[in-house]
Every structure is written in structure tokens, then in C-alpha cells.
């Protein structure tokens, strides 16, 4: 396997434009002959499917939800970044690029990130034209807010439902194409394997979640827009259905997996209440604009928050990071919350929580303004906890939220398998070791609207894939393997439910491969995961039949893949003997407890090649060259 990043030559600012102008085009009449399979219907998938269909390609789009409108992008709350400089506060493409590179702790590719920043402004134009109801000023112009890790105000938002509104925009564009007949939509359909013929991705095997039918779909290219894998931790802010299956199966068929250990733990989530907990709920980071984070100065201070006077409160982020304060990046804010809780100063049941207090902002701006900015978040908090944030400060704790790692892709967003693309959270490309707030929506839409539709044409024009039939023996063989796996899962007649196994895996991953990691713990975790995986196949009970709606079976397939994937994640975290961004190795820290990078040894993207189950994966390194930015220790002090 060879990693060819295909980064264009020339100065950073000219790379994309030059590349785009040199890209091979597919003649409009020939586009009709090409069939593209898009898996996933979130921001990246829906925007790509709609845009490809507008260009004239035939598209099939698949999602496991009952409607493409429900993909998990819908849950993104806070906003989307764009270098519009509408606030006249000195923002620019370069600044957005630099903030993203720095926020990612210098572990992402300059060229990709610069392109992302360049495209960002057009995304806002596109979404506005679709009717996305962004927040506005009284004069009718677009409004902005600030987000973590930056000092300019460049985030566009639609109340606390930005992801929903952007997704509905893309969904509506997609729906229009489905109505015209250029996109065939397959809801309640899950991709269970990838079909590679002569080194090229030529199709997928799916299971219809209602009838259970396992089918083959052939095409000229396959686009995976299947999101991230935070659910490997069981408890995360992801939707219950989010899974690693599509990208893991692609990995097993030859796609390199990059930086799997880079997982973002979001600082502002509602703490867990008990063993029944099925997921964790995020409170938008935008609350950190007006909220102040604190814990009592003294251990074991059990006074209710309003009885703790100012001098007994430790606003630790403001104390440690005076210039960024409560807007320190996510990885830092999360780790510091863990530290103060580990010191015994956490609040709420079990001491796993810190206060996010809007008292001062309410006093300064008034209840009405705060309600307008965060009303729906406050209501959500109250429904879950039974407490009113206007009266009592919110309690928050970090939770797994986003995965920067994903399938390795080149500058064209193609994986190491020809004709197989990965876009959105499913790839690794833009966020390095830590993603800044309001950048996921930007990246998903940049990939789907403005990058993939160009770059996929370049491949199709050059590779000129000949038509394959889903009756080709390769499809038969892999469909057989998928059916056999379903049969095996159903035949296992153990005593333990899928959910119980998933929880146990999640516990191991959170403890050993979560917010902080060390070599001993990671090695232990790898051993434990192997044991659990064996136990899973021996002792799981799935129940029901394959030819019906069987949610236990769906879950079982996903958990089986998480068990295989989790080991790779630990392996990656173990091999990276440095701390960077979200990846905090306890052995490698500065005296102040900040992440200590080792650019000399680890200034690369780790791309892993699958070598067979139970075999050591093969590491490939893509060195990261920095021409426009100067490598520095991140400082938010």
C-alpha cells in the first residue's frame, strides 16, 4: 500500500483553484451513464448526493434511518464557521485556516485545511439560497457568534438547531432530486460490506432493515458518508444508530484507516445519572460564550451553588487560560474538567460534574436575551435533569462526541481503494488531533457540495470504469459472506444481550482509551477487548429472525464490528508516544500538564492497513509538511 496524498504543487492559496481548473471533466452526456453510490444521508452524504445528481450523474443514496432527514448531523446545535469577516474583527481565510490547524494541534494537512477555509464562505451563500433560516440582525443581515478556540466571531447559526436547519436544506435539495428521479433513495437500508473488483470499489452489499433482504448494488464509484464512531464508547453524544460498520468493512477491504485514536471528548454534556443511561446529551459549546465554568475551591464542599460565595469558587479555565478563558478549545476544557473532578472538587451525584453558570450573563443581559440565545438548550437541560438553569447553574461533564480519525483520503477525498471516497466525519482529513467547534458542519458541507462533485469526475474521466453487473461473482461471494455472518449472529445461543457486551466494551474504552491514556492501560485494554470479542461470539444472544425488522440483530452486527475496530483504536493510541490535541498520553506532558507534542517522531498521519483479524495491522506514515504555519506549542494562556 502506498499513500499518495496528491497534494497539488504551488503556493497554498493557489492549490485548490489550480487543481480544480486542471481536473478532468466528464462530458454531460456521459455523466448520465455513471452510477454513484452514496452511503449516508447526513450533511456530507445528502449534499453530495444532491450535487452529483444536479451535475447529471445517476445516484443511489442509502441510509439506515427511516428518512434521510434524520441523519445525526441534525443534532448539531451551535453553528457553522465561515471566513466571511462580516463582523469586521479581522477574520480571513488564512485566520480560519490557521485556527483550524492550531486547534488540531498541527496534525492535519495544510492544503486540505486551507481549501476548507477557502470554501467556507460559499457554504453560507449556498445554504442561505436554500432557505436555511440563519439568525439575523435587525437590519436583515446575517448574525454571528463566537465559538471555542478562536478570538473572532465567525459562527453562523440558526438558534440552537443549526445542524437541523443545514441538514434540512441538504435533505430538501436531495428530495428535489429524488422527485425528479435522478436519485434513488434507500431508507432503512444498512451497508454491510464493500465490493472491490480489480482493485476498484464497484459496489456494496446492503441489508433491508424491514424485510431483512441482503442485496447487491453495483456502481462506478462508492462514497462513504457514514459519520463517526464515538459509539465505540457506548455512551456518547451520538445517536444510538451511529456505527463504524461501513468504514470498518471498507478498511477490511483495503482502505487505510487514519488516526483512529483521535476521538474528541466534548466538555459540555449533561452528566450521567445511573446505570440505565443510554446516551449522553450535549449542551452546545456556544453556552461557553456567556457561561462561566467553575467548581468549589475546596474539596468536598457540598453547599448548594448559590450559597458558595465568589471567593470560594474556582473559575479554573479563566484562571489557567486568561486570554481564552471559558472559550479554551474542547480538548483542554475537557481535560481540565476531569482534573478538577479527580481532585475531588466535582459537583453533583458522584462528583462527576462542573458548573456552567450563566448567572452573570443573565444579570448583565437580562433573562430575555439569554432565553432568546439559549432558550431551547435550557429547556432541554430542564427536561433531562429536572433543574431550571435560570435558577441553578447547569452541571456538565465531558463525553465522547466526535471522531477526527477516519478513513485515510487523498486531496481528492479518495481512500486507498480506487473509486472509494470518504467524506464528512467518516474521513480523517481536516481536524487533526482536535476539532474546533462549528467546524464539523463546515467540513461535511464543503466535502459534499464543493469538493467531491469535482474530484469524483476526475476519477471517472480517467478510470473510465466499465459497467459491472450485481450478478458478477464478486458480488455473489461477498453477499454470501454477509448472509453467513447474519446467520452466525442469529445462531449464537448464549445468554448475554448485545447491549450488555456493548456497555462492557464502552467501559473499557472510556477507562483506558478516553480522555487520558497510558501504555499500561492501553495494553490491558487490547487484551480485554480480544477476550470480550471471543466471549461475544460465544455467549451473545440476539434472538428473532433475519427476515424481519430485528433491531437486536442490527445492533449485534454493529457491536461485532466495534469489537474489531476498538483494538485498532488502542493500537494507534499506544503507538503514538506523544500527546497532541485530544490524544493525551500521561507519559508525555509539560510540567503544567499540557499536551507535549513530539513533532520529530510523530509529525505524521498514521494510516493503518488491515492485515487480517488477530494480526498486527501495518502502519504507513504520511509525513506532514508545514510550509505556511510555524509549528508551536499550542498556547491559549
Amino acid at each position, binding site marked *: 500500500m502506498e499513500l499518495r496524498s496528491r497534494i497539488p504543487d504551488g503556493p497554498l492559496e493557489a492549490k485548490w483553484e489550480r487543481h480544480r481548473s486542471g481536473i478532468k471533466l466528464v462530458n454531460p452526456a456521459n455523466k448520465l451513464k455513471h452510477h454513484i453510490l452514496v452511503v449516508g444521508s447526513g450533511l456530507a452524504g445528502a449534499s453530495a448526493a444532491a450535487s452529483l445528481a444536479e451535475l447529471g450523474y445517476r445516484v443511489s443514496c442509502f441510509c439506515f434511518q427511516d428518512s434521510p432527514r434524520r441523519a445525526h448531523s441534525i443534532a448539531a446545535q451551535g453553528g457553522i464557521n465561515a471566513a*466571511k469577516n462580516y463582523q469586521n474583527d479581522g477574520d480571513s481565510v488564512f485566520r480560519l485556516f490557521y485556527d483550524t490547524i492550531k486547534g488540531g494541534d498541527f496534525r492535519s494537512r495544510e492544503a486540505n485545511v486551507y481549501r476548507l477555509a477557502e470554501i467556507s464562505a460559499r457554504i453560507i451563500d449556498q445554504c442561505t439560497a*436554500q432557505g436555511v433560516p440563519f439568525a*439575523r440582525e435587525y437590519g436583515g443581515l446575517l448574525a454571528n457568534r463566537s465559538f471555542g478556540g478562536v478570538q473572532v466571531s465567525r459562527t453562523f447559526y440558526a438558534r440552537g438547531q443549526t445542524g437541523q436547519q443545514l441538514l434540512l436544506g441538504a435533505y430538501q435539495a436531495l428530495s428535489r432530486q429524488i422527485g425528479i428521479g435522478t436519485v434513488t433513495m434507500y431508507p432503512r437500508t444498512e451497508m454491510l460490506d464493500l465490493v472491490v473488483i480489480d482493485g476498484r470499489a464497484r459496489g456494496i452489499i446492503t441489508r433491508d432493515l424491514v424485510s431483512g433482504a441482503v442485496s447487491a448494488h453495483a456502481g462506478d464509484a462508492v462514497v462513504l458518508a457514514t459519520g463517526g464512531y464515538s459509539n465505540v464508547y457506548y455512551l456518547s453524544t451520538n445517536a444510538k444508530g451511529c456505527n463504524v460498520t461501513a468504514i470498518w468493512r471498507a478498511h477490511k477491504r483495503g482502505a487505510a484507516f487514519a488516526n483512529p485514536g483521535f476521538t474528541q471528548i466534548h466538555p459540555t454534556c449533561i452528566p450521567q445519572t445511573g446505570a440505565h443511561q443510554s*446516551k449522553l446529551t450535549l449542551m452546545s459549546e456556544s453556552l461557553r460564550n456567556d457561561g462561566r465554568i467553575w467548581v468549589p475551591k475546596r474539596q468536598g464542599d457540598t453547599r448548594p451553588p448559590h450559597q458558595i460565595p465568589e471567593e470560594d469558587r474556582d473559575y479554573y479555565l479563566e484562571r489557567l487560560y486568561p486570554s481564552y478563558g471559558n472559550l479554551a478549545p474542547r480538548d483542554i476544557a475537557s481535560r481540565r474538567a476531569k482534573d478538577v473532578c479527580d481532585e475531588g472538587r466535582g459537583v453533583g451525584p458522584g462528583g462527576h460534574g462542573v458548573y456552567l453558570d450563566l448567572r452573570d450573563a443573565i444579570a448583565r443581559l437580562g433573562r430575555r436575551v439569554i432565553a432568546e440565545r439559549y432558550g431551547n438548550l435550557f429547556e432541554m437541560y430542564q427536561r433531562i435533569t429536572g433543574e431550571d438553569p435560570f435558577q441553578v447553574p447547569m452541571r456538565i461533564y465531558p463525553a465522547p462526541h466526535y471522531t477526527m480519525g477516519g478513513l485515510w483520503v487523498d486531496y481528492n477525498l479518495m481512500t486507498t481503494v480506487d473509486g472509494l471516497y470518504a467524506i464528512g466525519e467518516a474521513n480523517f482529513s481536516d481536524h487533526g488531533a482536535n476539532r474546533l467547534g462549528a467546524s464539523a458542519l463546515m467540513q461535511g458541507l464543503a466535502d459534499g457540495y464543493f469538493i467531491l462533485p469535482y474530484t469524483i469526475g476526475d476519477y471517472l474521466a480517467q478510470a473510465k470504469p466499465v459497467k459491472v453487473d450485481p450478478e458478477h461473482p464478486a458480488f455473489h461471494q461477498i453477499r454470501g459472506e454477509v448472509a453467513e455472518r447474519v446467520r452466525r449472529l442469529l445462531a449464537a445461543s448464549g445468554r448475554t444481550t448485545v447491549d450488555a457486551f456493548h456497555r462492557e466494551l464502552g467501559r473499557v474504552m472510556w477507562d483506558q482509551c478516553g480522555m487520558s491514556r497510558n501504555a499500561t492501560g492501553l495494553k490491558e485494554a487490547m487484551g480485554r477487548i480480544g477476550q470480550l470479542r471471543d466471549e461475544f461470539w460465544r455467549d451473545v444472544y440476539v434472538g*428473532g429472525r433475519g427476515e424481519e425488522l430485528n433491531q*437486536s440483530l442490527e445492533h449485534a452486527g454493529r457491536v461485532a464490528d466495534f469489537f474489531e475496530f476498538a483494538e485498532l483504536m488502542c493500537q494507534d493510541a499506544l503507538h503514538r508516544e506523544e500527546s497532541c490535541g485530544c490524544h493525551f498520553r500521561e507519559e508525555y506532558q509539560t510540567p503544567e500538564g499540557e499536551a507535549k507534542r513530539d513533532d520529530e517522531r510523530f509529525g505524521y498521519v498514521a494510516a493503518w492497513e488491515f492485515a487480517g483479524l488477530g494480526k498486527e495491522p501495518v502502519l504507513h506514515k504520511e509525513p506532514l509538511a508545514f510550509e505556511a504555519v510555524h509549528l508551536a506549542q499550542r498556547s491559549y494562556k
Partner: protein
Amino acid sequence: MRVTLHVWRQPGPELAGVFVRYDMTDVSPDMSFLETLDVLNQQLLARKDDPIAFDHDCREGICGACGMVINGRPHGPQRATTTCQLHMRSFADGAELWIEPWRARAFPVIKDLVVDRGAFDRIIRAGGFITARTGSAPEANSLLVPKRDADLAMDAAACIGCGACVAACPNASAMLFVAAKVSHLGLLPQGQPERATRVVGMVAQMDAEGFGACTNHGECMAACPKEISIDFIAQLNRDYWKAVVSPKPQAASANGGDA
């Protein structure tokens, strides 16, 4: 706390359904309603019984996947709350709960509490969009939208497409769902060129799907987890009549015509 659940069990679309009683003990008031069903399903699996099928995904009240009728009310007793956000502290200890799927001809039951809401997607395809090809958009701030209009459009756009409005309506009408999208796009300057074709196309599809007519019960608004107002239905009616009696010729296809 203790609760008794009577859950609608229906093995398939063509098979008869029946309420099955489950008595649950040790339910924590901090549990969400769906977590209670999770616990019950774990118990059913442990006895090798078929677990209850129900749709759910984000569990934070935004994806619109979940939805069941609890004691006759879509999404249960709490105002402005989806089923996934409902917590057991909303119920008294010893409560007896009857749990059913959405019941509407246009939403056929697939299994237990899972229904097919594909009709909503087909209504959107019939006109619930603004035609704006990728790449053709003008600079965003070249278009001024009064804050009041943008806010009102956002109120309508908050719809999560869960279908509670249909389940709550004695006529199983989808008017609130359609009204929300027609109003969201119709309130914005970007939505004007297709305003007439949009409303005509969406209403025709709504009728074709077998949803009932609106007779102003207002149950939809009471059940809506996003509190979308029936004022938007008035807006829909106004837009519809304006479009139908408009002297302007209608486009042949609601999909815009560059097919």
C-alpha cells in the same frame, strides 16, 4: 418506582396486534421513557422473548425518529417534549401506561410501535424545497431578511417531522407538517419564486397519501413537541387559495422543470 406498561405488540403489517401487559419494578425517576423500554427489552431478551420494536435515534429530541402514543397522547403527557426526552419523573409511582404506535392510514404499522412515515418524505419531494443548484448562490448578505421574518420562518422550520400532529388529529391530517414547510420557505424572499407551485404540489401529495382534512381541532399544535403554531395552517390555506385562483400559469411540474 413501579409502572405497568400495556404495549401494542404487532408482529407485522398484515398481522393483528394486541396490548401486552408488562409490570416493571425498580424504575428510576431519572430514566428516560425510552430507557425504560430498553430495560424492558433487556428483560425480554433474557427470557428469550421478542423485544419491542420502536424507532429512536438521537434521543435528544431533534431527529424526529421516536414517537409513540402514551395514554392517548402522542409523545406522552409533557408539553413540548418528544418521547425520548420524556422522563419517568413525569409519571406517578404505580402508573399504568398504554403505549401505541401512531395510528393513521398514511402511516402503516411495520412492527409493534414502528410505523412507515415515508408519506412525509414524498410530500417534501412534491415541492418542499427551494431550487438552488449547488454553486449558483449569490453572496449571502446580498439578500436582506427582516429579523422578524427570519425568526418566524425559524419557528416553522423547527418541525422535526415526527408525525405527532397526524397521530393527534382525529382526521389524521398532515396539515401542520405541510403548513410548517410551506410557511418556512414562503416567509423568506428566497422562497417566493416557487411559492405557488410549492403549496399546490405539497397539498396534492398530502391528499394522495390518504391524510385527512383539517377541521380546526388544534390537537396537532397541542401534541407538537416543537410547539408549531396552527397560525401556519392559516398561512397555508391563504397561500393555497392564492395559488389556485392566481391568474399566473402554473408550472407543469412542481419539481421545477429542469429534470
